[in-house]
């Protein structure tokens, strides 16, 4: 089966593209998609504990099943609104 992967912000910078297609063997869960990305881009590993996921534009979980045609999004820690008090994590 084939899924579309979307990544944002710092994750996109690490991967170098905001959208990719992945072929997987069923049955698969979101974590399998993430693992395949990390294999290709080992620097993503630092995000494993902090990343959120969405399947077909709904928040989901790493252990959720994926099906053919799904859009899987990986979201780095968010920072919307205003007035960040958190320290910057990485300087590019």
């Amino acid at each position, binding site marked *: 089966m084939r899924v579309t992967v979307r990544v944002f912000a710092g994750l996109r910078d690490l991967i170098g593209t905001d959208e990719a297609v992945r072929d997987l063997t069923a049955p698969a869960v979101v974590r399998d998609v993430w693992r395949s990305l990390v294999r290709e881009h080992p620097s993503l590993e630092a995000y494993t504990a902090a990343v959120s996921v969405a399947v077909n534009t709904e*928040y989901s979980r790493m252990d959720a099943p994926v099906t053919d045609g799904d859009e899987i999004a990986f979201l780095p820690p968010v920072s919307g609104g205003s007035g960040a008090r958190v320290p910057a994590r990485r300087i590019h």
Partner: protein
Amino acid sequence: MTALHKVTPERLEVTRAIDDVLAAYVRSSDADGTSGPGAVSTFLGLVRDRNAGRTVTRLEYEAYEPLALKAFERIADEAAERWPGAVVGIRHRTGTLAIGETSVVIVGVSAHRADAFAVTRYAIERIKQIAPIWKREHFDGGEVWIEGATADPLDEAARAEALRRACV
């Protein structure tokens, strides 16, 4: 009917947001036979010139738009559950913003002032927790993605913290 929530690269218009949220409140209070609007509270987030000791030159906001709109709906629903009758509208800007520009506008409308203040505060706390929006800070000497909270709408501790802050 105008959308209550927006994610947009265009400048945010506060009076427009107030009119839209007031109209939504009136539709809802008319339908429920409850009190008309008695209070409007607005919160504007601005691009600040300093952050963490750095001189900021501009901010770049990026959103996963369809999920951000759903997150705003969820936040508004949570607020209405805690403060029945109150209506909150959330509008967030994307793209490159100069210092002093408005990145987010939140409008809370209710029958009485306490709830209008509370829903507005609650909404900004929840946006920072669960809205899939990111900002890249450009400062003198570099740029960095600001990474705050791991977004998890089902994290009850985070939601409780937002409620606590809204009720002080």
